[in-house]
């Protein structure tokens, strides 16, 4: 075995080290991608569930606030009625 010049030897060591580092970085980033992807899937599922909840609540609100229910509650439970004209005053615009 002939002797390598020291500068070349240093380069080889440096390159091998960086190869090792980059290989480990690949492993770690792949791991992160997987983790991130799992998280993304969880979030997508969550978005779906939230949307599901949102539309359910939207429908619920509108069922409670349906005009016929409001008029029913107003007239039956609260004994309200539309003001007749004698009771209303027109304020000039």
């Amino acid at each position, binding site marked *: 075995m002939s002797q390598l010049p020291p500068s070349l030897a240093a380069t080889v060591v440096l390159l091998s080290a960086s190869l090792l580092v980059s290989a480990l970085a690949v492993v770690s980033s792949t791991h992160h991608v997987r983790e991130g*992807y799992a998280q*993304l899937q969880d979030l997508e599922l969550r978005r779906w569930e939230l949307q599901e909840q949102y539309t359910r609540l939207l*429908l619920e609100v*509108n069922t409670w606030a*349906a*005009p*016929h229910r409001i008029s029913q509650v107003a007239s039956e439970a609260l004994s309200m009625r539309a003001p007749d*004209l*004698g009771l209303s005053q027109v304020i000039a615009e």
Partner: protein
Amino acid sequence: MTRAKQAYRLPRWRFVVICLALAALAATLMGRLVLLQVTEGGQGAVFLREQGALRTVRTAEIPVYRGLIEDRNGTPLAVSSPVVSLWANPQQLQDSPRLDDLAARLSLDVAVLRDKLRFYGDKQFMYLARHQTPDFARQVLRENFPGVRGEREYRRYYPAGEVTAQLLGLTNVDGHGIAGVELAFEDWLQGVPGKKRFIKDLHGDAVRDFGVIEEPRPGQALALSLDLRLQYAQHRELQRAMKETGATAGSAITLDAWTGEVLAVSNYPVFNPNSRKELDFSGARNRAMTDAYEPGSTIKTLTLVAALESGQFHIDSIIDTAPGRIRVGAKMLHDPRDYGEISVSTVIEKSSQVGVTKIAQAVGHEAILDVLYRFGLGESTGTGFPGERAGQLPDFARWSDIEKVTLAFGYGLTATPIQLARAYAILANGGIRRPLTLLRQDPDALPEGQQVIDPEVAREVLEVLGRVTEPGGTATLAQVPGFSVGGKTGTVHKVGAGGYLDDQYVALFVGVAPMSAPRYVTAILIDQPRGDHYGGGLAAAPVYSRITEEVLRIRNAQPDQSELRALLSASGGGQ
């Protein structure tokens, strides 16, 4: 080496042959590698990559929701809600011992399920139960029946149910509009599902996402011109009128004459859009827009326009209607009684057949037909509603005497309630015709209108319409407390086999309110009211009154009948 050299004297060619053979082996391997990894054609790299992808990479559709439909105030009218459709791979499920269990869970008959599985036995996919609530679907999926999976979908719900059913229309089970607004604005509402690619593992779970190939584009929200409160009130009053008159069908439509917006439209019969099982198609029609009727006396208003435009008449010109009947061709036309000498205005107020006939004979049918055209009869209103009819104007080569006059009182032509409402909206809007729309308009960016009659003529006609609802007119029941309203009744004999039927009527009323600032036009049509109250003045005008009261209240119109208001204030509130 040196010792071997001494022991065996190898011929040089053997060495060469071995070297070449080894080199050839190496070259073959390398060549094969290059072929597999580098070259593109044949069984090369591309092919292999594709084959690999075929086994692991899947493209999945990203479902998108359909756009929300809301009313002018943002209240949702149609909402897409996530649901889960349960499906199965028949080949995996077929021989499962848990089939009974699954059938019970889904409330299916086991025998039916077995038949279905056998039928789809050579397929990999079949629906078990579509559009299940996510909670229920999750419970079923948690039990891990073999081959049973869930697919996310959206289902359309209509919070207002039957109140908005005919206008909004329906979507089919795959979420495409098949009727009404859902169909008319399908492109706008319908989203474009996205696509993504991912690698799946042995169990079919995604392990790595290649990302989205096509970005999903959810459907866009649509704001209608409808006012749900108003729509509800109109619907309620129409249903009530149907019950009271025993009519077979009816329609009501309210327009904002200034903007051309349709504020409410209801029909009878109705259907429940949230339950498909009991779908009855006679209830699915938006009759106010799809069914054309003979408009009868409501057209006399337009005859009045022609009369005023001709210059031969003013609203105070006197017409002699004695003796209360007039012969046209072979036919005798009657008034209910002899009104004698009355003004043109009174002719309309009383809806005198004889008076209108004389006006029609004086101005000629061409002039009347021209007015009808300008008021948009026989022509679509521009809403784009699927199935909207344009009605028909008569187009005879030769007009008989009777045809020339019947046109003036609304026989021999057909129009939909929305067309009648639009014609009156032109009057209310100072003679400016606007395209009608079902969408909320920006009041500062209205489409250009077209001046079709002189504003002064429109004003005079409205003045006459105002008198129709006053004491002595045909539609006193159309009055709305606190407001001055105007309108015109119509009572039309229905057409049956062999001509007009004596005992079947269509009652109409088209009105404008408030007269001080005419803006809201409502047309009422009641098909076959029973009993004695069959006429427009008795069957339709009260419905108009009740609906218009709500319209003016909900739209915050200012009461304009000061005398009445003073009167009511003095008496301490009317009740």
